[in-house]
Structure formats: C-alpha cells, structure tokens
C-alpha cells in the first residue's frame, strides 16, 4: 500500500482503465458518426467497428492484470470472488434471456449489453464480499 491508500496494482489498473475508456469513447463516437453516415465503408469500416469492442476486451485484460499484479492475497481473493459472481450473474441473465428471446417472448438485445450486465454483477460481487468477508476490497 502507498501513502495514498492505493496499491501499485490499483494505480496501474486505473491508468490502464483510463486508456481503454478513452479509446472506447473516442472510437464509439467515430464509428457511429463515420459508419452510419457512410463516410467510411468496406475494410476501414470493419476496422473502425472493431475498435470499441477491442477496447472492452482491454477492460477485461486490465481486470485480469490487476488480479495477477495484486500482492495482497486477501484483496486479490476478494477480486476473484467479485469477478466470478459477476460472470455467473451475466451468464445466467444471458441464458434466461436467450431462451425467452428464442420463443419470441422478449425483444432482441444486442450482445454487447452483456458487458453492462456483467458490470452490474461486479456490484453484486462487491456487496457479497462485504457481507461474507466484511470488506469491500479495492472497489473496482
């Protein structure tokens, strides 16, 4: 832990997160503007459309690196629990929604929304950690 209360792993996490959030926002605005208005087509459109998704992959990589680099084993365990709960929650929602959608009982939802559901699952994981282990961890 440093004097600021942030572990080196968390400081690196925040720096990486800032980069990927910036890339995500910029590429999403660019893709929506340029592709929808047909300013770019073909291969460049493909390349541009891939960037927001890859930025989200970078977000997952950032969380993975945090787990790898965190030296405090208790805080690391909390983060692993948190992400497992989020993953279980997101897969459960996707499974149930998928079958409801299959039988035309609910509308279609774009696949990337599962990341939003997963992020909500992180909050559930955070709460679970507080209830079962009495700690929030580093609150990613």
């Amino acid at each position, binding site marked *: 832990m440093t004097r600021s209360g942030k572990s080196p792993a968390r400081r690196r996490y925040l720096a990486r997160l800032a980069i990927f959030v910036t890339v995500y926002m910029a590429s999403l605005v660019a893709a929506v503007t340029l592709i929808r208005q047909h300013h770019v087509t073909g291969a460049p459109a493909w390349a541009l459309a891939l960037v927001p998704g890859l930025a989200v992959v970078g977000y997952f990589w950032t969380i993975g690196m945090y787990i790898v680099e965190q030296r405090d*084993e*208790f805080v690391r365990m909390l983060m692993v629990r948190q992400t497992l709960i989020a993953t279980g929650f997101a897969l459960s929602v996707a499974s149930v929604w998928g079958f409801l959608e299959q039988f035309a009982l609910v509308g279609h939802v774009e696949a990337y929304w599962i990341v939003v559901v997963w992020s909500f699952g992180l909050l559930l994981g955070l709460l679970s950690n507080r209830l079962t*282990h009495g700690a929030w961890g580093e609150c990613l």
Partner: protein
Amino acid sequence: MNNRLRVLRAERGWSQQDLAARLEVSRQSVNAIETGKYDPSLPLAFRIARVFGQPIEAIFAEGEAD
C-alpha cells in the same frame, strides 16, 4: 481457524494499520484474519509468525473462529 493475532498485536501496542504495514498487506486483510473471516496462506502465516517472533502453531490453531 483460530488465531491470537489480536492479543499479540495488543501486547505490542500496535494498531491494525501498524501490523498491516509490517506485513505489507492492507488493513482490511489484518482485520479479516483477526476476525476469522479469512485464513492466510502458508507464506503469509510464516510472515505473521516472523513479525511476532513466534512459531506458527503458537499463533494459529485448528478449529472454527470464535
């Protein structure tokens, strides 16, 4: 797992933060171990034993935490 962390820490007049700094872990880790919510790994248990200058078995004992 039962442990005598709180007693040993109090005997030395250390706060949880003091002990956390000596162990190079977070204060919430020390609190979780003291309250029996988390059992440390063997390497961390050895570090705790070294900090208190006692064998592991004098600090940790089998059984459910109180």
